[in-house]
């Protein structure tokens, strides 16, 4: 019996715009509208959407870094209140899109990975944990003393993954984890995420605009457009037999390679 880990109930988030583009006074932007999503332990869920779909807003709400306008986000039955749940940081972690900007350029790799351990008061030998987690992402211990600008894009993303996994979270959210990486490096990182989340029993939520990335890693997918879920279900089913027009447009828009003879 799968245990419910994260759940959103009629989740909505609306932003007030300072001035409408046409200058007509206060306008509202509905980033998320009555969203109902559930994520079970061990799930590998993909979230597909273009810019303006609301996926970024959803991620912030799932991380407890933002407050819903209405509705709620629940983690293992507990309603999230932004800023009032420091323990949530330990349970839900994130890997960001751009490894160049998600690592503090002035901190050494070991300090970067140490940060969540210190802030969350993790009760184990920090240095041992840093070494452990560096090894699990395929980086040598010598990396500890380097700075982000000395590393390649792929290596930086590995550090970002190591940082996210250091506090042993229950859920890992990966927001476009390979979009900023070179094509030849992408597969390695995806493989790493797949392996680690599987071996450690971590629930994975993968946000991406790239359907092949989603197909590679996720069993379930939800497709978002303009703040609502337009389609959801088993990944293979959704991609092979899309029911919603938008999903079909997304699939049709993917540039294809010339077929081999």
């Amino acid at each position, binding site marked *: 019996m799968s245990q419910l880990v994260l759940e959103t109930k009629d989740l909505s988030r609306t932003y007030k715009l300072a001035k409408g583009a046409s200058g007509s006074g206060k306008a509202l932007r509905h980033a998320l509208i009555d969203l109902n999503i559930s994520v079970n332990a061990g799930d590998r869920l993909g979230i597909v959407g273009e810019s303006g779909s609301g996926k970024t807003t959803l991620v912030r709400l799932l*991380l407890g*870094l933002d407050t819903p306008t209405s509705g709620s986000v629940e983690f293992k039955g507990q309603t999230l209140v932004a800023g009032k749940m*420091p323990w949530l*940081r*330990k349970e839900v*972690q*994130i890997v*960001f899109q*751009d490894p160049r*900007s*998600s*690592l*503090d*350029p*002035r*901190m050494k790799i070991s300090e970067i990975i140490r*940060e*969540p351990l210190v*802030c*969350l008061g993790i009760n184990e030998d920090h240095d041992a944990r840093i070494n452990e987690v560096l090894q699990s992402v395929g980086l040598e211990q010598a990396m500890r003393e380097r700075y982000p*600008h000395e590393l390649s894009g792929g290596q930086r993303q590995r550090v*970002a993954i190591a*940082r996210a996994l250091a*506090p042993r979270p229950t859920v890992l959210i990966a927001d476009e984890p390979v979009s900023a990486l070179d094509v030849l490096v992408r597969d390695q990182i995806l493989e790493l995420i797949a392996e680690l989340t599987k071996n450690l029993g971590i629930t994975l939520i993968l946000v991406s605009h790239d359907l092949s990335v989603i197909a590679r890693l996720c069993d379930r997918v939800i497709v978002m457009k303009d703040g609502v879920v337009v389609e959801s279900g088993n990944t293979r089913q959704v991609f092979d037999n899309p029911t919603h027009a938008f999903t079909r447009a997304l699939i049709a828009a993917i540039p294809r390679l010339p077929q081999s003879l």
Partner: protein
Amino acid sequence: MIRKAMKGNVSLIAGSIMVSITFALLILSFIWTPYDPLAVNADDSFAGISMRHILGADKIGRDILSQIIVGSRVTLFVAALAVTIAMTLGVSAGIIIAIASRKYQSPMIYAVNIALAFPAALLAIILAAIYGASTITAVAAIGLATAAAVAQVTRRTAHGILASDYVLAAHASGASTWRIIRKHVMPNLRASLLIQASAVVSVSVLAESSLSYLGLGTPPPAPSWGRMLAGSQQYLFVNPLLAIWPGIAIVIVVLGFNLVGDGVREVFDPTLRRIDS
């Protein structure tokens, strides 16, 4: 690391030399001066460059070189104190405004803009009117006036840092606001602060000279380069040396600190900028 920074960095090398000269004068002022700068000697009135007075003497026979040497004390004292006040107040204010919630930010930014409108001279006049002109009022005026500019630049830079992905990642790692300021904002502000500090120093030196010139700074008889300039005005065509020496001294200090600031910027920029693809 300092040696590496100096390599090929003309600004930093030239600036450092000039600043070192100034500090050498300062140290010298406590050890030895050719004459007591306050010693009056009617016989040497308006003496030109000679064996007795290397840089000449002023109207009442005081040795110019000695005045220049001792005058460095006031200049550097004011600069050091003003920089301390300006940076402490300005950086704190800048960071506080940057992390404040949107509701409070607007009025605070407004206040900084108003403060920016007050030139140091105006503040100095106000303070002098209340407390009487002195080195301290000059320091306070300059410090407060420049703090506003520092606050503005700091706020903008800090805002940029706070909006970055790695600060968001720190939040996601459970870091408190205080920790983010300490560990992420301050280190990344370092380059900007160093450059600002060198600018503030140059401004302070010039401001102190101006204030002394106007009679709003260090009162006589303590030697001050600015007042030496003021005093030399009426004798400009009789003995231009009286104006030239303090003028050169001021230029060396201000230019020196400015060049150091430029040199520091050169050091930090290439590290941060990488050429990809």
